[in-house]
C-alpha cells in the first residue's frame, strides 16, 4: 500500500496527518517525507538517523584541450547552462537539468560528468516505523530527482506513507505518481478550497483514487463540503479546530501521543482507505 498525503495549499496539516496515521498504525509502516524543500515529519517522529546519503545529479565537465568550440553542446542545451564566447567555454552548473545532451552530442568526446549535490537522503527508525526523508541543499532549485531518490525506498508490501510537498507543479506530481491513494488534506476556507481544486485536478491527470481530510473543520464555511459532494470525493476524517491540538503540534508532539482518543480515528481512516483501494 502506498498512500501519498497532499494538499495544494501549504499548512493545512499534511505532515500532521501523515505522522499521526503512521504512528497509529505502528509496525510495518514506512514514512517517506518527500517535501524535500521543507521536510517536517522528523520534527514529530524524532527518528534515530542511521544512514545519510549525499545525492547528486550529473553535470558536464568540459575538457578544454579536446574542445574545438564547435558549439553543438550550446545548441542542444535548452537550459542555457553552457556558453561559448570566443575561445572560452563557460558552464552554469546550477542551470543544468542533467539531460546528458551535451555529452551525447559532443563529436570530440570532450565532455564527462561530475556531480552537483542536490541534498541528502536520511534513513532511520522512529520506534518501529521506518523513516526516510530528503533534504534539499539550500540554494538548490531542482527537487524532483531527490524526491525520486526518497521514493526508491518504497516497499509495496509494507504500508508506505508519503508526505508530499504543497502546490500542484512538478515536485507534487513526482511525490504522488504511482501511489495507490492520494489523501488530500484541506481546510474549509476559500484558500483551502481553491488550492484543493487545483490539487484534485492534478490527481485526476495521474488517475489515482483520492479522499479528503478536512482539518480545522469548524472554521471558514461549507464550500469545501459542497465541492467534495459535487466531485464525489469521500470525506474520510474531520478534525475540528482545537487550541490544544495547535499547542501540541507547536511543541513537536503527535496528536495521538497527547490525545489518545484520536488513535481510533486514524485507524478508521486507514480502514476507509484500504476499502477504497481494495475496490479500485
Amino acid at each position: 500500500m502506498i498512500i501519498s498525503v497532499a494538499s495544494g495549499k501549504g499548512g493545512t496539516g499534511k505532515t500532521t496527518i501523515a505522522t499521526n496515521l503512521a504512528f497509529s498504525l505502528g509496525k510495518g509502516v514506512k514514512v517517506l517525507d518527500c517535501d524535500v524543500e521543507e521536510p517536517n515529519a522528523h520534527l514529530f517522529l524524532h527518528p534515530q538517523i542511521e544512514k545519510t546519503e549525499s545525492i547528486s545529479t550529473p553535470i558536464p565537465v568540459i575538457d578544454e584541450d579536446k574542445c574545438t568550440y564547435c558549439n553543438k553542446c550550446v545548441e542542444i542545451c535548452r537550459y542555457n547552462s553552457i556558453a561559448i564566447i570566443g575561445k572560452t567555454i563557460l558552464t552554469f552548473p546550477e542551470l543544468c537539468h542533467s539531460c546528458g545532451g551535451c555529452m551525447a552530442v559532443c563529436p570530440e568526446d570532450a565532455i564527462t560528468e561530475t556531480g552537483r549535490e542536490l541534498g541528502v537522503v536520511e534513513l532511520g527508525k522512529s520506534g518501529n516505523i521506518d523513516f526516510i526523508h530528503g533534504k534539499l541543499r539550500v540554494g538548490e532549485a531542482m527537487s524532483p530527482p531527490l524526491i525520486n531518490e526518497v521514493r526508491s525506498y518504497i516497499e509495496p508490501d509494507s504500508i508506505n506513507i508519503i508526505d508530499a510537498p504543497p502546490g500542484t507543479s512538478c515536485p507534487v506530481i513526482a511525490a504522488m505518481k504511482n501511489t495507490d491513494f492520494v489523501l488530500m488534506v484541506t481546510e474549509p476556507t476559500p484558500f483551502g478550497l481553491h488550492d484543493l481544486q487545483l490539487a484534485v485536478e492534478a490527481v485526476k491527470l495521474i488517475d489515482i483514487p483520492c479522499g479528503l481530510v478536512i482539518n480545522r473543520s469548524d472554521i471558514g464555511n461549507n464550500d469545501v463540503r459542497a465541492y467534495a459532494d459535487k466531485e464525489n470525493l469521500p470525506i474520510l476524517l474531520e478534525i475540528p479546530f482545537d487550541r490544544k491540538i495547535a499547542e501540541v503540534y507547536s511543541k513537536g508532539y503527535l496528536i495521538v501521543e497527547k490525545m489518545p482518543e484520536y488513535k481510533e480515528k486514524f485507524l478508521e481512516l486507514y480502514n476507509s482507505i484500504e476499502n477504497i483501494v481494495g475496490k479500485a
Partner: protein
Amino acid sequence: MKELVILSGKGGTGKTSLTAAFAAVSKKSILCDADVDAADLHLLMSPTIKQKTDFKGGGLANINPEKCTECGQCIELCRFDAISDDFVVDKIDCEGCGVCVDLCPEQAIDFPIQTCGEWYISDTRFGPMVHARLGIAEENSGKLVALVRQEARKFAEEQNIDLILTDGPPGVGCPVIASIGGATALLIVTEPTVSGIHDMTRALELAEFFKVPAMVLVNKYDLNPDQTDAIEKVVTSKNLTFLGKIPFNPAFTKAMVQAKTILEYDEKSDISREVKEMWNKIMASSEMNTDN
C-alpha cells in the same frame, strides 16, 4: 524602485492574508503574486483582469509514428524515462530537454512549444496587480515567477509606482529562488511551531545564500509564546531584524470568507492596528531603505 518579497518557508503561516492587509495599508504599491502554482492572493483582491497573456514554457517531445523506425535511440538517450517501449512520450515525465529531438536519426520527433500557463495584469481596489496561473502539473514554475516579477517591475515603472509587494511561494526550491533575486528585502512570516522555526531557518539560509536582506515576523505568536521567544533568539543571533509578533486571530479566516482584508473586515480592531504598525515598521526598516 523597491520590492518587498513575502516568504515563509512553511505554508499556511499567513503570508497571503498579511500581504493583502499590507496592500490595504500601503495604498500605493503594485501587487505581484509569485505563488504561481497555488496562487491565492486574487481571492482577497478580486482583480479585474485588464490584460491576459499566454505563458510559453519549453517544448515537449512528440514522436511521429509515420517517421519513427523504432531504432530505440531516443529511449536509450532519455534520462527521464519518459519514452515507453512502444515509442510514446509521457507528457508528465518529459523534461523538455529536447535531446531525443535533436539526436533522432530519422528526425521523427516534433518539439512543439507548450502553453503552460497564463499571466495577467489586473486592477484591484488597492491598485494594480500582476499575477499568473501555471497549468496543472506543469514545469517551469521558476520561469513563470521570474516573468511575473519582471512584468510587475516594468508596469510599476510605467505607472511611476515605487513599491512592489510580492507574495512568494512556500518552500526553498525553484520558484522561491526565482522570487528573491534582486529583491530589496524579504519578509519571512513564520509561526511559533517546531516546523515554523525549522522552515524559517532554511528560508533565512536561502536569503543569506543569495545575499538578500531578510526580516522576520511571527504570526499567531500566542499559540506558543516559548517558541516565539526561541524564534526571536534565532533571528537576533543572525543579526537580522525581528519585526515583532501578531496574535492568533480567527478574524483573518472570517475576513477571507468575505474576500476582504483584515483591515476592511474590521478597521478599528486591535489586530488591524497591529498590522498597520507592523507595516510602518517594515517601511521604516533599514532593510527597505538601503540601496543594494
